[in-house]
């Protein structure tokens, strides 16, 4: 199973993401934003956290227009898997691979702490390692994590079981406590919390392991 971790100027969770994917058994390529193609045989594109292009204009807006993201859009179009974490989630909404937008936190401040989340669906390759309703603890660290979408869109996401994670205690004003959402074909996940920072006992928790293991397992078997 091959994963491509994108690297933008300002990415800072790219290495952590690669470590988490490798620990779960993936072969990982780091892919520079100016590249125009993904490595042959890429099963998963992983878009890391950080501050791509210094968050200029809007978080993720410039990265979404980078050469590699055209290849990512084509990969998603073919039904390929894409995981976006934190800034990666912002990039995926700016690419319109996921609905909605991540606005400035309602409390204005940057929030950096561990947060309790509820798994809302186990029906995806990302969340199959959890059970619906399970509580997990992932770190969060963001300034713009306030998930916003139209009421119709939010109803649709909930109705189709595409809300993957919600916050137990909403830290940023996100609509309906949403922390992560799935695409219509359930092969694109974006979430603000950092599962890759919870995969080693030294991190203080290992709740993120199940996400990477189930994803790598599902794609290796495919």
């Amino acid at each position: 199973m091959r994963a491509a971790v994108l690297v933008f100027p300002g990415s800072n969770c790219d290495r952590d993401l690669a470590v988490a994917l490798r620990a779960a058994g993936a072969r990982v390529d780091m892919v520079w934003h100016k590249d125009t193609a993904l490595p042959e045989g890429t099963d998963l594109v992983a878009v890391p956290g950080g501050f791509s292009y210094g968050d200029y204009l809007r978080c993720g807006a410039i990265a979404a227009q980078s050469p590699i993201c055209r290849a990512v859009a084509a990969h998603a179009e073919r039904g390929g898997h894409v995981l976006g974490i934190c800034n990666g989630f912002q990039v995926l909404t700016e690419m319109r691979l996921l609905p909605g937008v991540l606005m400035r936190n309602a409390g204005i401040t940057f929030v950096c702490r561990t947060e309790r989340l509820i798994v809302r669906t186990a029906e995806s390759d990302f969340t199959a390692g959890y059970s619906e309703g399970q509580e997990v603890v992932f770190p969060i660290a963001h300034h713009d994590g306030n998930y916003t979408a139209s009421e119709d869109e939010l109803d649709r996401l909930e109705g189709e079981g595409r809300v993957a994670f919600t916050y137990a205690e909403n830290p940023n004003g996100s609509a309906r406590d949403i922390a992560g959402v799935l695409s219509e074909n359930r092969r694109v996940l974006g979430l603000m919390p950092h599962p890759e920072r919870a995969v080693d006992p030294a991190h203080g928790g290992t709740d993120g392991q199940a996400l990477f293991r189930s994803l790598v397992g599902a794609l290796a078997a495919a």
Partner: protein
Amino acid sequence: MKARVTVMLKDGVLDPQGEAVRHALGALGFSGVTGVRQGKVIELDLAPGTERDEVERMCEALLANTVIERYEIEMG
């Protein structure tokens, strides 16, 4: 030629930064401020003859996120 694009959050979208500015103005004693909305202004230097339509496409493609933002274009 130039174009000036003003990007604002749509009405009804909570603007936490505008709210913070409103509170700060209140703290300074400006008691009459009932609302603040914060946006951005983007000035474009354009090749002569650039059509307004093209600037509109720029807004749709990049300059604004129309999920939450609206934009106004002034050609000058």
